[in-house]
C-alpha cells in the first residue's frame, strides 16, 4: 500500500498505529489479504504452552483428557494454526477415516504448510468425500507452490463460459456466464458458486459477495451457501462469514419446518430428515438448521476469541457491520455476545431469543462490556470504527468507552476522525472533545477543527473552542476566510464571536475585501436545508456594516447568490441586488431573466420590481412577459407586476385594451394556482378599468359561457352593460337557462321585453320551454300560450314540445294538443307521438288509435313499434295496453290482412306470465283464428276433455 496519511514525520509507534488502522479500513471496504503472505497474527506461537500440550496429545492421544477425542485435538491444532502439529497431522492422513478425515483436511487446510502438500494432494484426490476434497483443495490453494496447478485444474472443470471469463479476468462477462449457468434447473448448478468461492479470484469475489447477499436461503441454493460459509470459517474470511451470519440472523427458516415432518405441495407430509438426504431436496434451510447456524456463528467467534486470535476482531467487526440497521431496541444474539458479553447489567438470553438493551445507560461509565477486551485493545482502529457508528447494537458506546480511557488516544484519533465524531451522538462528541484536547497545539491551530468544535452541539466544547480562538487570535487574523466561516457557524455564540472580532479584522489592510469574497463564496455553498439563522448574522453585517461597500460590489458575485442552494441566501442576494447602485437598465439581460424566473417567489418578486423599473418603451416590447408575470402562480410576483401594468395602462389605451383581452383569455382557462383568477379580476377592474368599461357584448357572452367561476362572475357583473336589443333570440334563451340566478333573472327580464321576437323564433322558444330551470320553462310556456300566434302553433311545434324528456313539458304539450286539436292533424300527431318512449305519451297516443287508425291497415302496420313497445312494457301502461288489445282485436276481426299482421304480435305477447294480458292475447288469437281460419304456432285449441259424464236419461 502506498500513500501518506501524515504531512509531517511522526513517531514509529504512531506510524504503526496509522498503518494498522488503514489496513483495517481497507478490509472493511472489501480488500483481502493475498493468500500466502504472512498472516497478521503469526503462524504459530512457539512459547505457547497450550500449543505444546496439543502437540503432546497428538503424539499420544491416550494422554488427552477423556472429553478430548482425536477429532477435537486435530481441530484445535488447526484452529490455533500450530505449525509443529503439521507433520503429525499429515502422518495421520493414511489411517484416518470418517469425520476424523474431514477434520484433518480442515486442519491441514488451515495450516497451509508447504510440508503437508503431499497429504493435502492425497486428500484432494478423486474418490475422497466432497467435503474432504473441498477443504484439501482450499489448503493447496493457500500454498504458493501448489496454487497455480490446482487453480488451472479447477478452471478446466468449470463451465466453459465461466472459465473463459475467469481467465480473462472479465467481471461483467463472468456475471453473465454465471447467470446463464444458474438459470438451469439442475439442483447441483448453484454449487458453481462454491467453486468460485474456493478459487477466490479477485474478479469473482464481488460476484460471490453479491450472490450471498441476494440468494434465497432455500433449496437448491442453501447447500451452496452452507458450504461457502464453512469454507469462509476455515479461512477466517470475515466478509463472507459476516454476510452469511447476517442473512441467517434475518431470514426466517422455510415455513413449516419446525417439526419432524413438513407438508409439501403435491406430496403431503414428509419426514424432514429423509427429505434433506435427497439430491433434489425441497427442504434445506429448516428451523433446526437455522438455529444450529446461529449458535455456530457465535461458537466460531468464541473459539477465536478464547484462544486469543486477532481474527476474532475482524470477524466480529464484519458481523456487526452486516447486522447494522436494526430498527428495534433488541439486538441479535451474536451481537449481544460480542458487545454485551462482559456487561454487568446484561445477562445472556435464553436460546433463540434476542438481547434487550441497545444502549448502555444502565452500565456505569467507564465499564467495558464487550467480550475479549484485550483483543479489542490491540485494535484501536476497530474501536474507532465502532465509535464512528454504522454498526449493529450499542457498538458506538462500546467503541467510545474503550477508546476514552486510552492514554494514546491522540495517536489513534486524527482530526478527520474528530470532525466525524463531532457530528454524532453525545458519546462520540465527548470522545472527540477529549481527543481534540489531547492533540491541541496553540502554535499550529487547526482551523477545520476549531470551526467544528465552535459549531458543535456540546456547549463545553464550544466554550473551549472560543477560548482556543482567542488564544490563537494573532495567527488566525491572517486568515479572513476563517472568520467568514466562523460567521456562518451553526452555533450562535460562534457567530457572535465572529461579529465581535470583525472590527479588529477590519483594521487590517485588505482583510475586508478578502473577508467579503470568502463570505459570499461560503454563502453560495450553504446547503438548501440549513438553519435560517446561520446566514442571519452575515446578512446583518452585509446590510449594515458593509452596506456602502456592497452597493458597488461586483454584480456577478451578487448574482451568483441567486443560484445558491439556500433560499435564504437567494433572498439575501435579491435584496443586495435591489439595493445596488446600478439602475435597472444597467442590469444584464441574463441576470434579469434568471431573477424573474427564480424558484423562490420572494426572490422573483424582487426581480419583477427591478424589471418594472425599466423604461416604458422597453416594457411595451415585453408584453408577453408582463402577462406571464401578472398571471404567475406566486402571489408576490403578481403583486409586483401590478404596478408596471397600471403605469403603462394609464398612459397607453392600446396596451390596456390588449392586456385586458389577454387577461380575459387567461380567466377562461382553468386556474393554474389558487388566487390567480381573483388577482387577474382585480387587475382588470382596477388597473384596466377603463378598457373593461368599453368591453363589447360578445366578449361578455364569452365570459358568461366560460368554464371558470371568476370569468362567469366578471361576465355577470358586466351583464347590465349589454344591449339586449343587439342579442339574438337564441342568445337570450341560452342566458335564461344560465346557472347563475342573477344572469337568469336579467335574461328573463329581457325575455319579457322581447317576447314577440323570441316567440317567433322556434329554436329559442323550444330552448326556453325545455330549459333546465323552472322559471325559464315557465317563461317559455307563457310565451307559447300567450304570445305565440295560434297560426304558428303547428303540430310540428307541439310535437317538438312533447318530445321533451321532462314530464311537465310533455304535459304542457299534451294540453296544448288537446286545446288546439284539429282532426286534420290527427294522423301526423299519431304517427309522430307514437314513437315517444314515455308511458304517459303512449297512453295519450293510445287514445288516438280509434279515431285515426281504424280501418287503415297501412297506418296500423307503421305503428308496429308502438304496439310492440306498449305490449312489452313490464308492469306498467295498463290503460294503453288494454286500449291496444281492444283496438287490435277489433281491427283484426274486420279484415284478414290486418289479422295476418296482428297475429304475430299477439302470439309474442301470449307468452307473458301476466295472467290478464295472456288471457286477452289468447282470447284474441282464438277469435282471429275462428274468424279467419289462420294457423297459430303458439296456441293450439284443444277440445274439452270428456270424463264420461252421465248419460241422458
Amino acid at each position, binding site marked *: 500500500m502506498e500513500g501518506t496519511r501524515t504531512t509531517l514525520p511522526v513517531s514509529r509507534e504512531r506510524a504503526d498505529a496509522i498503518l494498522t488502522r488503514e489496513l483495517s479500513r481497507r478490509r472493511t471496504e472489501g480488500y483481502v489479504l493475498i493468500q500466502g503472505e504472512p498472516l497478521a497474527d503469526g503462524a504459530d506461537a512457539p512459547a505457547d504452552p497450550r500449543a505444546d500440550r496439543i502437540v503432546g496429545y497428538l503424539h499420544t492421544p491416550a494422554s488427552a483428557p477423556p472429553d478430548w477425542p482425536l477429532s477435537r485435538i486435530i481441530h484445535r491444532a488447526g484452529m490455533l494454526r500450530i505449525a509443529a502439529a503439521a507433520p503429525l497431522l499429515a502422518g495421520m492422513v493414511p489411517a484416518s477415516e470418517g469425520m476424523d478425515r474431514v477434520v484433518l483436511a480442515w486442519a491441514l487446510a488451515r495450516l497451509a504448510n508447504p510440508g503437508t502438500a503431499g497429504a493435502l494432494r492425497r486428500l484432494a484426490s478423486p474418490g475422497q468425500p466432497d467435503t474432504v476434497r473441498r477443504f484439501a483443495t482450499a489448503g493447496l490453494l493457500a500454498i504458493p507452490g501448489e496454487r497455480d496447478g490446482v487453480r488451472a485444474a479447477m478452471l478446466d472443470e468449470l463451465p466453459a463460459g465461466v472459465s473463459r471469463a475467469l481467465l480473462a479476468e472479465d467481471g461483467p462477462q463472468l456475471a453473465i456466464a454465471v447467470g446463464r449457468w444458474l438459470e438451469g434447473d439442475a439442483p447441483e448448478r448453484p454449487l458453481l458458486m462454491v467453486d468460485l468461492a474456493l478459487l477466490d479470484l479477485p474478479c469473482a469475489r464481488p460476484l460471490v459477495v453479491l450472490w450471498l447477499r441476494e440468494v434465497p436461503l432455500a433449496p437448491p441454493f442453501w447447500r451452496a451457501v452452507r458450504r461457502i460459509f464453512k469454507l469462509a470459517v476455515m479461512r477466517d474470511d470475515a466478509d463472507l462469514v459476516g454476510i452469511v451470519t447476517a442473512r441467517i440472523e434475518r431470514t*426466517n427458516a422455510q*415455513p*413449516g419446518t*419446525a417439526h419432524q415432518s413438513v*407438508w409439501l*405441495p*403435491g406430496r403431503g407430509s414428509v419426514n424432514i430428515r429423509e427429505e434433506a438426504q435427497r439430491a433434489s431436496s425441497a427442504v434445506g434451510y429448516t*428451523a433446526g438448521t437455522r438455529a444450529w447456524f446461529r449458535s455456530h456463528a457465535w461458537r466460531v467467534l468464541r473459539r477465536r476469541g478464547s484462544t486469543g486470535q486477532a481474527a476474532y476482531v475482524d470477524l466480529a467487526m464484519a458481523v456487526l457491520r452486516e447486522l447494522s440497521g436494526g430498527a428495534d431496541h433488541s439486538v441479535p444474539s451474536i451481537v449481544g455476545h460480542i458487545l454485551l458479553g462482559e456487561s454487568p447489567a446484561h445477562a445472556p438470553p435464553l436460546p433463540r431469543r434476542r438481547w434487550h438493551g441497545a444502549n448502555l445507560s444502565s452500565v456505569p461509565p467507564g465499564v467495558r462490556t464487550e467480550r475479549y477486551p484485550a483483543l479489542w485493545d490491540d485494535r484501536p482502529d476497530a474501536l474507532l470504527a465502532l465509535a464512528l457508528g454504522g454498526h449493529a447494537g450499542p457498538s458506538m458506546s462500546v467503541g467510545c468507552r474503550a477508546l476514552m480511557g486510552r492514554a494514546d488516544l491522540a495517536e489513534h484519533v486524527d482530526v478527520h476522525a474528530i470532525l466525524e465524531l463531532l457530528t454524532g451522538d453525545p458519546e462520540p462528541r465527548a470522545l472527540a472533545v477529549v481527543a481534540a484536547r489531547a492533540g491541541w497545539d496553540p502554535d499550529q491551530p487547526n482551523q477545520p477543527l476549531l470551526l467544528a468544535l465552535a459549531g458543535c452541539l456540546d456547549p463545553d466544547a464550544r466554550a473551549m473552542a472560543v477560548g482556543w480562538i482567542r488564544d490563537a487570535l494573532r495567527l488566525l487574523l491572517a486568515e479572513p476566510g476563517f472568520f467568514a466561516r466562523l460567521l456562518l457557524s451553526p452555533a450562535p455564540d460562534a457567530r457572535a464571536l465572529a461579529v465581535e472580532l470583525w472590527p479588529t479584522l477590519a483594521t487590517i489592510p485588505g482583510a475586508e475585501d478578502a473577508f467579503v469574497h470568502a463570505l459570499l463564496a461560503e454563502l453560495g455553498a450553504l446547503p438548501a436545508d440549513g438553519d435560517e439563522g446561520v446566514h442571519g448574522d452575515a446578512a446583518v453585517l452585509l446590510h449594515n456594516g458593509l452596506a456602502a461597500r456592497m452597493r458597488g460590489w461586483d454584480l456577478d458575485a451578487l448574482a451568483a447568490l441567486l443560484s445558491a442552494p439556500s433560499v435564504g441566501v437567494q433572498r439575501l442576494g435579491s435584496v443586495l441586488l435591489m439595493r445596488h447602485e446600478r439602475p435597472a437598465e444597467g442590469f444584464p439581460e441574463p441576470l434579469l431573466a434568471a431573477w424573474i424566473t427564480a424558484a423562490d417567489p420572494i426572490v422573483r418578486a424582487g426581480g419583477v420590481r427591478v424589471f418594472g423599473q425599466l423604461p416604458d418603451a422597453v416594457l411595451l416590447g415585453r408584453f408577453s412577459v408582463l402577462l406571464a408575470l401578472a398571471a404567475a402562480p406566486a402571489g408576490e410576483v403578481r403583486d409586483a407586476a401590478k404596478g408596471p401594468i397600471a403605469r403603462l395602462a394609464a398612459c397607453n389605451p392600446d396596451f390596456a385594451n390588449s392586456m385586458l383581452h389577454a387577461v380575459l*383569455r387567461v380567466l*377562461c*382557462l*382553468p386556474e393554474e394556482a389558487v388566487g390567480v383568477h381573483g388577482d387577474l379580476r382585480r387587475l382588470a377592474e382596477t388597473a384596466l378599468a377603463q378598457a373593461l368599461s368599453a368591453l363589447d357584448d360578445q366578449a361578455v357572452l364569452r365570459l358568461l359561457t*366560460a*368554464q371558470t367561476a371568476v370569468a362567469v362572475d366578471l361576465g355577470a357583473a358586466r351583464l347590465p352593460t349589454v344591449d339586449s336589443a343587439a342579442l339574438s333570440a337564441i342568445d337570450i334563451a341560452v342566458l335564461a337557462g344560465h346557472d347563475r340566478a342573477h344572469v337568469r333573472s336579467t335574461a328573463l327580464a329581457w325575455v319579457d321585453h322581447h317576447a314577440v321576437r323570441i316567440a317567433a323564433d*322556434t*329554436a329559442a322558444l323550444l330552448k326556453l320551454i325545455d330549459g333546465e330551470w323552472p322559471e325559464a320553462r315557465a317563461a317559455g310556456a307563457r310565451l307559447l300560450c300567450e304570445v305565440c300566434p295560434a297560426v304558428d302553433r303547428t303540430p*310540428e*311545434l307541439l310535437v*317538438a314540445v312533447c*318530445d*321533451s*324528456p321532462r314530464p311537465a313539458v310533455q304535459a304542457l304539450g299534451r294540453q296544448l294538443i288537446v286545446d288546439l286539436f284539429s282532426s286534420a292533424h290527427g294522423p301526423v300527431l299519431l*304517427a*309522430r307521438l307514437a*314513437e315517444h*318512449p314515455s308511458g304517459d305519451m303512449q297512453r295519450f297516443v293510445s287514445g288516438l288509435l280509434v279515431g285515426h287508425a281504424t280501418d287503415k291497415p297501412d297506418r296500423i302496420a307503421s305503428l308496429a*313499434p308502438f304496439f*310492440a*313497445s306498449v*305490449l*312489452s312494457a*313490464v*308492469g306498467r301502461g295498463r290503460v294503453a295496453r288494454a286500449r291496444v288489445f281492444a283496438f287490435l282485436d277489433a281491427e283484426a276481426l274486420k279484415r284478414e290482412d290486418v289479422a295476418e299482421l296482428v297475429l304475430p304480435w299477439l302470439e*309474442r*305477447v301470449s*307468452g*307473458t*306470465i*301476466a295472467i290478464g294480458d295472456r288471457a286477452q292475447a289468447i282470447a284474441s288469437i282464438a277469435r282471429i283464428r275462428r274468424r279467419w281460419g289462420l294457423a297459430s304456432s303458439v296456441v293450439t285449441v284443444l277440445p274439452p276433455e270428456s270424463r264420461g259424464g252421465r248419460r241422458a236419461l
Partner: protein
Amino acid sequence: MHFEHRYFGRTHGETGPVRSALCFAPDTRRVPTHFTGLVDRRLPFREGMAALHAVVVSDLRPVQKDRSAYLAWRADQDGLELASLLAGAKLQRAGLQAEVKRLRHRLNEVSEGLQVARKPYLKARQEYYSWLYRNDRGAWIVLDPVVTVHPDQLFFECFSQDESSYARFGCGYEAFAEVGELACGTTNVDYSRKLASEFEKLRTYRDTRLTVDPTGFEVATDSDDAHREVKIDLPDSWVRGFLQVGAAMNLPGARLRMHPMDLHNLLFVLKSRRETHGPRSLRFHLTGALRVDIEPFGITVPLARSIVRDNVGIDGKAMREVRVWGRRRLAVLERLLPVCSRVDVTLLGTGLPSFWVADLGGLDFTLGLSGWTANDWSRHGAFDLMAPRGEVDAPTALAVFACLKSGWFAPAEAIAAKLGIARATVEAALLQLTQAGRVMFDLSRRVFRARELFADPLPMDQLRYASPQEASARALVAANGVLSLQSSEVDGVWVLRGEVQGPRTQFRSEARIDGDERLQSARCSCSFYRHNKLFKGPCAHVLALRMAWQARAQASVAS
C-alpha cells in the same frame, strides 16, 4: 388510480324539427379516432343508448345510514356519563353533581341549538341529493364511456359505478344509412345527462347524424379555452371489476338463446315483488325443462321459448344448475324488449359473471353482470378471473396484438393461422391482453377486437388482487394449503371448519356462509384475525377455506 382526459369542447346534441345531430367530444390525448354516420335504425339505436345510460348511472349498492351525527352525540354523552360515574365515585359530592347537571343541561341546550342551526343545512343537503338522484344521476358517473371505431362497427362500452355491470352497445354499419370518413381506434368520450336527454328525442322522422368529432385532434394549441382537462381518480376495485368482467367474456359456459318474452317474465316477477330476506338469486335449471327459480318467492318461470345451445362449465363438464345474484340489474334490458328479436345468455357458473346479449337487428347490446352487485370481501369467488391461463412470453403477446390490430378484429384461429403458432398460445395471449384491457371479446360476433381501454398501461400487479389477504389465499389454495375442510348446513347457513397451512404452523379457521353465499361471520387462530377481527376483511386462511369449499361445491354440482 388517476386518469386524465383532455376533451376539445363538449359533447352536445342538437334536435331540430327534421334532423338531429349527436356529436361526441373524444379524448384528444388518445389516438385520433373519429366517425361520422347517418343512423338508419333510429328507435333501436335510441333504446340501446338509453340502456347504456342506465348502466352508466346505475348504482345498486345498499346505502348505509349516515350515523355520524349520532356518533358525535354519543361521544359527548359518553363523556358526560363518564363524568357522572366519576362524580358518583367521589361520594356523590353535591357540588360536582350540581356541576354535572348544569353542564348536561347546557350541553342539551347547545345540542338543540346546533340541531336547529343545522336543520336548514341538512334539509337543503337532503333536497339537493334527492333532486340530484331524480334529475341528474349522471352526476355520479365515474368514468366516461369508451367508444371504439372499427372497420365493421362502432361500439360504446361502459362500467357502472357500483362496479358490477358492464355494457357494450355495438352498432354495425348496416344500421347506418350512410357512413362517412372514419379513423379506427378507441377513445373516451365526454358524456353528460344532457346528452342522454338528447338521445331520448331520436325519432324516425328526423335524420340523425352521429359524430365522434375529429376537430379536437386538428387544434394544435394548448392554450385554447375549448380544451378541458378532466382528472379522475378511479378506485382500483372499479378498474379490476371492469377487467375481470372483460376477461370472463371468452370463458366457456352455458349458452342460452332466450326469447324476449321469457326475459320479460323474469323482469315482471322481479318488478312486481320485493324480497325482504335472502336468498336473492335466480336459479337456472339447465337439465330437463329449462326453467328459472326466483328465490325467495318460490316462483318458477319456465323458459318455454328458450333453448340451451351449449353447456360447458369452466371445468369442462356440463353444468346442471347455475345461480346468479344481483338480478335487479337486468332491469336495464327492459327498454330493449320491444326492439330485440332474441337475447343470448352466457352463464359461466354460480357466483361468476353472466352475459346477456340482446340482438337489435344490426345493433347488439351486451350486458355483463359480475357475480354479485357488491363485490366486497364477503363475496370473493373461487375462480380467479385475472389469473393467467397459459404461459405466453412478451414477444408472442406483442406479435398477437400487432396481428389483431392490423385488422382490428379477428377470431383466434385466424390469428393463429396468420402467425403460424398454436391456437392455444394465441388464446392465452389474447386472454392476457384482455386482462390488461387491451383486447375485448365480442360475444355477439364471437371475435376478438383490439380495444385499448386506457391510454396508459395498467399496473397489473396492483390490480390482480383486491387485497394482500386475497393474494395469499389464492396462493394457499393453489398450493393445497387447506389441509382439512369440514362443511355442514344448519338452517340454510353453511358452517365451514378446517385447518389451513400458515408459514410456520397450521391455523384453525371457521366461516359461516349464508344462502346468498355471503360470508356472515368467521374466526381464525391467526394473528391477523386476532388483531383485526373482520374490520379489515377476513384473513387469508378464512378466504382460502371458503375458496376451497366453493371449488369443491362446484365440482360436486357439476358431477
